[in-house]
């Protein structure tokens, strides 16, 4: 016995100790009602704590799946919301688009840049998923960009953080609209220009998409006014604090206008006619 390594002796001692103590506890529990009640209570408490921990670990590993389900649910809710908006906007029309004018598709950002003047992103949906050039990319916090090129499985998005990109936006309070553009400096700020002097804008007012394009649906909140500056006595230039944090962006929605082809064809005909 003394010839055994110390580690083996310690292991034997621990095993014998635990076995004897468990045996004692079983005997105590079998011989006294109070002790049984308390010991079983403690065992159940330990069991519940263990199960709780196990389920927490399980939940952690299923987070990715849960996230996908939530994103899908968001897409469905967005579709429903659009449908109700369309119905309420045209109460006297005989025809209402069955699922609203816009459809949404969830996508994940594969790669993106933020520190340049002309930023872009790569998302994991392409022509196979029905994505085409010119579709908008949004989140619940605002606009993200416009799809510029598409491959089978990926799309190249020109980010809103691009000095050549501008989006039509309006003041939700007064419905005055102008062009929203990133100035190329601060990724949390943009400038809304060409807003008339009598718009009644105030710091803290919300700015949303105007819907005056076939790319983005109306009323997606973009940000709030943080500074008002008159330009040459005719217009206002409004500094906007963006809701969208481009640094933490991972999941986006591709938004597609269902009547876009029709609108484009009409614009083309009109252009040729002139």
């Amino acid at each position: 016995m003394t010839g055994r390594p110390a580690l083996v002796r310690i292991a034997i001692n621990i095993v014998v100790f635990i076995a004897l103590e468990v045996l004692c506890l079983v005997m105590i529990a079998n011989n006294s009602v109070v002790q049984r009640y308390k010991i079983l209570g403690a065992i159940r408490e330990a069991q519940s704590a263990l199960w709780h921990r196990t389920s927490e670990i399980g939940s952690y590993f299923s987070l990715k799946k849960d996230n996908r389900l939530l994103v899908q649910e968001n897409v469905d809710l967005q579709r429903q919301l659009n449908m109700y908006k369309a119905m309420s906007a045209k109460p006297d029309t005989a025809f209402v688009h069955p699922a609203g004018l816009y459809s949404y598709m969830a996508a994940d950002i594969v790669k993106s840049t933020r520190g340049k003047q002309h930023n872009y992103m790569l998302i994991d949906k392409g022509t196979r998923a029905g994505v085409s050039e010119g579709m908008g990319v949004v989140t619940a916090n605002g606009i993200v960009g416009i799809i510029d090129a598409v491959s089978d499985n990926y799309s190249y998005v020109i980010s809103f953080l691009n000095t050549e990109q501008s989006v039509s936006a309006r003041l939700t309070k007064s419905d005055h609209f102008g062009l929203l553009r990133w100035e190329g400096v601060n990724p949390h700020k943009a400038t809304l220009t060409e807003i008339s002097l009598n718009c009644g804008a105030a710091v803290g007012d919300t700015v949303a998409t105007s819907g005056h394009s076939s790319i983005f649906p109306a009323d997606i909140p973009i940000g709030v006014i943080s500074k008002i500056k008159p330009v040459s006595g005719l217009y206002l230039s409004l500094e906007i604090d963006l809701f969208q944090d481009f640094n933490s962006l991972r999941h986006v929605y591709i938004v597609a206008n269902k009547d876009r082809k029709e609108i484009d064809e009409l614009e083309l005909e009109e252009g040729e006619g002139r």
Partner: protein
Amino acid sequence: MKDNWGRFMFFATLLIIQIVLSKYANVGPYIYLCCLPLIVIYLPLYQETFLSMLIAFGCGLAVDVLCDGIVGLNAAASVALAAVRKPLFAAFFTRDNLERAVIPTIHETGVMRHINYIFISLLIYFIVYICLDSVGMESLQTTLLRLVLSCAANLVLVLAIDYFMFNSRR
């Protein structure tokens, strides 16, 4: 052979004293007189810990069964004490003590160190015993009072047994 027989008689005597104490020496709810820890403490130090735990378990179980107590209570406390016996001895005494003291008596180890060693051993024994006995049914003050009084009373008992038994043997 003679030495083993003497040791067996010593432990048998302690066991009988323990049974008599448990059955007839009722000194109130706060003090539990018990010489079972002494049996565990006085097991030879060359004994392997797992063997000491098995012997402590057997003695504790015998006391529990013979004294009509809750079966397993003394056994659990004795096993806990047997498990920490050697490290505790090593903490209080020198390696020389450990090598010489086949049975750690007061004559072998010195008075103050021996008292401290016995007191800590009793404390461990009674922490396990009282915790399992009360299982949270008593208030903290009552539990602490039981612990302190039982440790103090048993320290006197253990030292008395220690003195008379080993002094008379000398």
